[in-house]
């Protein structure tokens, strides 16, 4: 399955935007697991995911060619 990962703010300092091709990531919980394994620094940080521009509040299925944004707490204004 292909996923496009984009990251922002503080998180963009250690996770580059990239396309990954992985199997076994069926939903956003699994994706978080994957992310925190690849980038252990994330474990101690607050962040949210947006799947195809929808901010994820609860575990959600990921379909092929999804775009997932990894976002630290917002600080606009």
């Amino acid at each position, binding site marked *: 399955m292909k996923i496009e990962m*984009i990251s*922002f*703010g*503080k998180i*963009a300092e250690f996770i580059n935007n990239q396309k990954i091709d992985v199997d076994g990531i069926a939903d956003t919980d699994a994706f978080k697991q994957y992310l925190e394994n690849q980038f252990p620094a994330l474990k101690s940080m607050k962040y949210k995911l*947006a799947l195809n*521009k929808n*901010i994820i509040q609860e575990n959600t299925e990921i379909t092929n060619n999804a775009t997932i*944004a990894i*976002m*630290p*707490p*917002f*600080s*606009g*204004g």
Partner: protein
Amino acid sequence: MSEKKIKNIFVDGPIKPAFIADSIAKHSEKTAIGGHSIFMGQVRKDEIEGKFISAIDYTAYEDLALEKMHQIREDIFEKYPLNCMHIYHSLGKVKTGEICLFVFTSSAHRKPAIAACSEVVDRLKAELPIWGKEIFEDETHQWKENI
């Protein structure tokens, strides 16, 4: 779903006082308006462990931010009898003392404009995917956090 006309809110660099004046002046044709409320965010020269902030560099997940802003705009127009609402947020570098956020609401009587303006600012800070990188005078940085 309603048809969306997503408005841009992002401006490159600081929001200039002349831009704000222009925006105010344009409302003189709108003679049903009796009250305008404005909020402006200005970059503070905060001191953190002996170092002063010189600028904030803003980035955003622009598409998502504009969609969220659209939702907020619709909610606010539904909630308050407003004549207009204008919102601008900087992207890129904004130096201390410069303006990075401009929210402008207008209504026939003052109370809706004032309440809407304040609510838009609160929601924008909480809900829009925008990030501020606080740059110190020595070029080091830290990431802003909204309290």
